[in-house]
């Protein structure tokens, strides 16, 4: 009897072992799949599957920002994919936010500080300067998700967003810019009332370091 129990325990450990594998986070090749939707990287698929299967979104809508792919994937509260759009993100690569950056003015933010921090954020709609309605992703570090702001024509943000290139989507001070139609028609109706979760995939950090619960999520082949 003890042998049988030990054998079963060994089998369970053997099947759970792949969960501890740490795949590379950055520069995943875009994958295509019927269930996952076109254009998602392996990291985005892993996070999407983990959130949907574990209920980590606590019955709230959620959006996955894939920084290396400069793309956003919106999901309803029950995990149904709603939309996929290109995004503009912080001009500097990096997964951390400089301490105290939330109290700095835009002019005071140095080039290396213009990062979009990676992580899991409980986001809510609120007002920003100029009575702008934004989705505050990380209020403390002033990271919000909103459409392309006015008076940024010099930076050609619209053209950058429309271009198929990914590298030119790094232009903001750390905020996430999304298409206006997506913001008003898809995101806002879902997030306006109770907010939702924003999962920002890392540039360089291992995925499991940013989302530790992924360690117990088996990787589906």
């Amino acid at each position, binding site marked *: 009897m003890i042998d049988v129990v030990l054998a079963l325990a060994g089998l369970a450990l053997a099947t759970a072992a792949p969960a501890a594998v740490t795949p590379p986070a950055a520069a995943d090749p875009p994958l295509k799949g019927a269930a996952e939707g076109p254009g998602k990287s392996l990291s985005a698929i892993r996070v999407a599957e983990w959130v949907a299967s574990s209920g980590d979104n606590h019955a709230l809508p959620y959006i996955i920002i894939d920084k290396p792919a400069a793309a956003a994937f919106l999901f309803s509260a029950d995990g149904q994919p709603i939309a996929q759009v290109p995004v503009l993100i*912080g001009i500097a690569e990096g997964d951390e936010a400089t301490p105290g*950056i939330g109290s700095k*003015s*835009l002019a005071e*933010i140095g080039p290396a500080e*213009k990062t979009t921090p990676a992580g899991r954020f409980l986001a809510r709609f*609120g*007002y*920003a*300067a100029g*009575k*702008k309605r*934004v989705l*505050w992703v990380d*209020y403390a*570090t*002033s*990271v*919000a998700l*909103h459409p392309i*702001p006015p008076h*940024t024509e010099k930076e050609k943000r619209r053209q950058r967003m429309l271009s198929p290139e990914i590298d030119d989507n790094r232009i*903001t*001070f*750390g*905020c996430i*810019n999304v298409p206006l139609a997506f913001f008003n028609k898809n995101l806002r109706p879902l997030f306006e009332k109770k907010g939702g979760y924003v999962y920002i995939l890392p540039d360089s950090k291992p995925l499991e370091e940013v989302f530790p619960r992924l360690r117990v999520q088996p990787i589906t082949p």
Partner: protein
Amino acid sequence: MSPSLTKIVPVAVVLAASLGLGGCATKGYVRDQIAVVNQRIDGLDTRLQATDATAKQALSEAQAASGVGQQNGQRLDQLNGRVDGIEQRMVENQNKRARN
């Protein structure tokens, strides 16, 4: 003793006795009177107790009402504080600049 004195003494005794008995109340009369007074005192005492109970109840209700009023006041203060905080945050939010 002279014959006149022998006649006077019984008369005097009878007179004195009648006078004495006429001035004193009987025990039964006194008991009756005391019973009436006692009854009235008992009645007053009962009414006093009832009045005392009413007054105590009124006092406890007033104290309870005062306690509830105090709690309501504290809760109002707390709510005022929260509303102030929310208003302050709203103002801050409107002034806080996103990193565009």
